[in-house]
């Protein structure tokens, strides 16, 4: 019996890093509660990741296999996850707030008739109650929530929880499951449509972002910086730049765009409205370049450069290339 259970997301035949983030956090909580940590993985690809999950503190890996679980489907995955939860009775269930988790968590919670607290950035225990912290009102305040009822479900913002190795057995336990096909669901027509080949904002390790200060649709300076940083870097934009038609909507970082948590966020010519900060405030390191020394972005940045970005960035790109060429 696992006191804490995490959902390990598999994508493209690989387990996502968020699974290890959840496992590490789940281990910490399970130790405090004095119980085991379980992980649920779906599909025939799941079993091979048991050892990986074990390395991050998972005692038991529940593998659910069924033809319906080979490709993500909100209804069948929620059925399977709910089944494992009902069978194993964990006190706490953690899911990643990824595109899949955003879809899966509410559906599973509604099946179980319990609440789920979305997009949390940290967890604590108060006795056996899970206290989950999350930003609200575009990050203008933080709220601590406790889920009543059992299990206590929450989803965690990706790339925020720390990954810690705590070797455990990662023993595989297969869970028998046959999907209830009488429930309506969708048909997947195409899994990976429209591949732009660009690194996605939500998965990029480095984001170079431009705002109103770019003055127009020419982002070549930022594209150049991103390409020098390497294949894990990409270019983002503020809402002002998207509204002006300089960048496409899929590039938008902020409350009405994407929430990103890269290791490095470079904000160029972005004043730092509350709605932008909501989308990038959890980045590990934030650098701001702006010619207005009063721009609010400087109060949210780790490092600031006051100056004309069209002069600052070329100089930086030059130095960056020189350094990486060494």
């Amino acid at each position, binding site marked *: 019996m696992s006191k804490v259970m995490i959902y390990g997301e598999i994508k493209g035949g690989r387990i996502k890093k968020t699974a290890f983030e959840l496992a590490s956090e789940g281990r910490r909580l399970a130790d405090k509660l004095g119980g085991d940590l379980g992980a649920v993985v779906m599909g025939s690809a799941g079993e091979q990741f048991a050892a990986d999950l074990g390395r991050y503190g998972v005692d038991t890996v529940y593998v659910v296999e069924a033809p319906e679980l080979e490709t993500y489907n909100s209804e069948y995955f929620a059925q399977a996850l709910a089944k494992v939860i009902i069978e194993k009775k964990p006190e706490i269930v953690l899911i990643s707030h990824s595109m899949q988790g955003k879809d899966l968590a509410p559906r599973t919670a509604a099946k179980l008739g319990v609440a789920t607290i979305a997009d949390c950035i940290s967890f604590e225990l108060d006795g056996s109650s899970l206290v989950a912290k999350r930003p609200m*009102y575009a990050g203008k305040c933080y709220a601590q929530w406790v889920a009543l009822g059992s299990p206590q479900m929450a989803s965690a913002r990706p790339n925020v929880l720390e990954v810690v190795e705590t070797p455990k057995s990662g023993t595989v336990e297969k869970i028998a499951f046959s999907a209830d096909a009488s429930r309506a669901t969708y048909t997947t027509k195409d899994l990976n449509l429209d591949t732009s080949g660009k690194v*996605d904002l939500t998965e990029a390790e480095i984001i170079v972002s431009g705002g109103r200060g770019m003055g127009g649709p020419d982002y070549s300076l930022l594209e150049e910086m991103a390409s020098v940083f390497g294949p894990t870097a990409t270019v983002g934009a503020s809402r002002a730049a998207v509204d002006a038609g300089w960048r496409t909507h899929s590039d938008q970082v902020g409350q009405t765009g994407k929430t990103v948590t890269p290791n490095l966020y470079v904000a160029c010519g972005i004043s730092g409205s509350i709605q932008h900060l909501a989308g990038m405030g959890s980045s590990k390191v934030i650098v701001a370049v702006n010619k207005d020394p009063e721009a609010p972005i400087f109060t949210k940045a780790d490092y600031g450069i006051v100056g004309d970005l069209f002069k600052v960035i070329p100089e930086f790109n030059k130095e960056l290339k020189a350094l990486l060429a060494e």
Partner: protein
Amino acid sequence: MRILVCVKQLLEPETPLCIDESGRWVNISQTTPRQMNRFDEYALEQALVIREQTPDTTVDAISAGPESCSTVVRRALGMGADHGIHLLTGDQGYVSPIRTASCIALAARSRKYDLILAGVMSEDMAQGLVGPMVAEMLSLPCATSCIFVRVELAKASVYVEREIEGGRRQALELDLPALVSIQSGINKPRYPSLSNIMRANRQKLEVISTVAAEPSRSCEDLLHLSYPRKTRAGVLLEGTRKDKARQLLRVFRERSLLH
């Protein structure tokens, strides 16, 4: 076809926020400016576009909230919705998404909608829970975060494309009835028209008290609110441009940001 759009009223995002004395909610006065959740505007616009393309289509707008919420339903009528439903909740404070979802599901069940649209999330709470929960409660298929929607009337289905990681999209087909949550960027919401505003002012909203209808479900409790602490060092780099570039690169190196 019959379409329902879920709309939420929220405080104008630019409004400064003040945590109240209990530390468990924010001060909200009657005069605090409010507006429709932007994601719901996209959902409503999408419904109106579908209505333009599909004969015999009606669009209902539904919102759950206190008295003040009626203005957001009227706003939806002003944009062009045919009928407005206000699920009147008792309190001004936080309402759990699972409770909101139960109320909407209860109201929607008897009305036999073919398609329910909702914003992907609300701008204030940003949890994105109500839409998929309503779908589950009504046993409907659900697609979240959609940036393309096309109703295929002949097949009684809806084709959608949803955003996923990796800059990619998934294409899904859902048999109607279904629930679809809408991501921003799908369309440009229209402004309310004068004739619709005049109609909205005359039209009666359907008000349903939800106090009795709220099922007893386990929910969540807000323990404490706090302002964000200023955690960033906020160091302004000095020197020539070259100096600044080199300082930054030194930091990046120390923090293993360069590969």
